[in-house]
């Protein structure tokens, strides 16, 4: 009778041991999960309509053509400078570990990583879409 009680007491412990060990040693559990997001870097760096919108001002603004062209180049460069900050802003809001370009995400085995390109684009459009060019006279 005592032996039976003893075995009954040990059973949950053995089950717990087996469960914990299997959890700890299984490859799935061994991997720390990362929150990976993706962007279409090429689109954000050169394909966004925002760049076309900035470039179109060359035909609209009266003034020295070279000065306007220079102002457009500077504005495009400002957008590119702001791009990493915009990506970081979205990433931090999502509490992400990594943001990768779509092609890198696929190479890294994360093809289903959430695409934050539209959110990043929205930030850049809000920041630069309505801002007038600064033309040196």
């Amino acid at each position, binding site marked *: 009778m005592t032996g039976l009680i003893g075995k009954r007491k*040990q059973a*949950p*412990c*053995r089950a*717990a*041991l087996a469960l*914990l*060990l299997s*959890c*700890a*040693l299984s*490859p799935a*559990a*061994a*991997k*720390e*999960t*990362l929150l*990976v*997001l993706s*962007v279409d*870097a090429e689109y954000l760096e050169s394909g966004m309509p925002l760049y076309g919108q900035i470039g179109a001002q060359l035909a609209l603004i009266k003034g020295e053509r070279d000065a306007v062209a220079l102002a457009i180049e500077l504005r495009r460069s400002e957008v590119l400078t702001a791009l*990493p900050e915009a*990506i*970081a802003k979205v*990433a931090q809001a999502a509490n*992400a*570990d*990594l*943001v*990768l*370009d779509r092609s*890198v995400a696929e*190479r*890294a*085995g*994360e093809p289903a990583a959430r695409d934050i390109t539209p959110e990043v684009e929205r930030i850049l459009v809000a920041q630069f879409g309505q801002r007038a060019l600064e033309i040196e006279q």
Partner: protein
Amino acid sequence: MKPLVLATWLAVSAGAAVASPPILVVDLSEAYSRSTALAGLLADVDRQLQALSARHRPGLDRLRSELGKLKQQGAGTRDPQLAIAKQISDIETAAELEQDQLSIANQNAIAIVNAAIAAVKSTLKEETQARIVLDVQETQYLRPTCACIATERLYELLNATLPRVELRLDAAPQ
């Protein structure tokens, strides 16, 4: 130790030992100071450049000074002027050749370090069972505290496998 406590301890410690992210990121931007091989190479190249300068500079300075004096003396010294100009040109050519050899030796040494870095990345991938090891330049954003950052381990392995690289001035281009 009671069985349940033991099981928990085993599970936690085993889990902690093998837990690793599926993607690793390394930052090689400080390789010239963090890699002992590259830091040594940089110092060697610097020493060689100083030695090269010390070998040729005094002779060049002396010849240029002589040439200046001869020019002041006038057209009668044309032949000695030409002879000195030729000596200056020869020294400059020799110095350029030595510089080229140094540059090739430097490139060869860097290629050795690059190969070691590639091997270390493979080792890192194997030991953590990660899917990929990315350079930080390949990322658009990296959380500064991300568990995926493996830069320290990379330099640890790199400095253990290639503590030094030789600057071989006699070696042919690779």
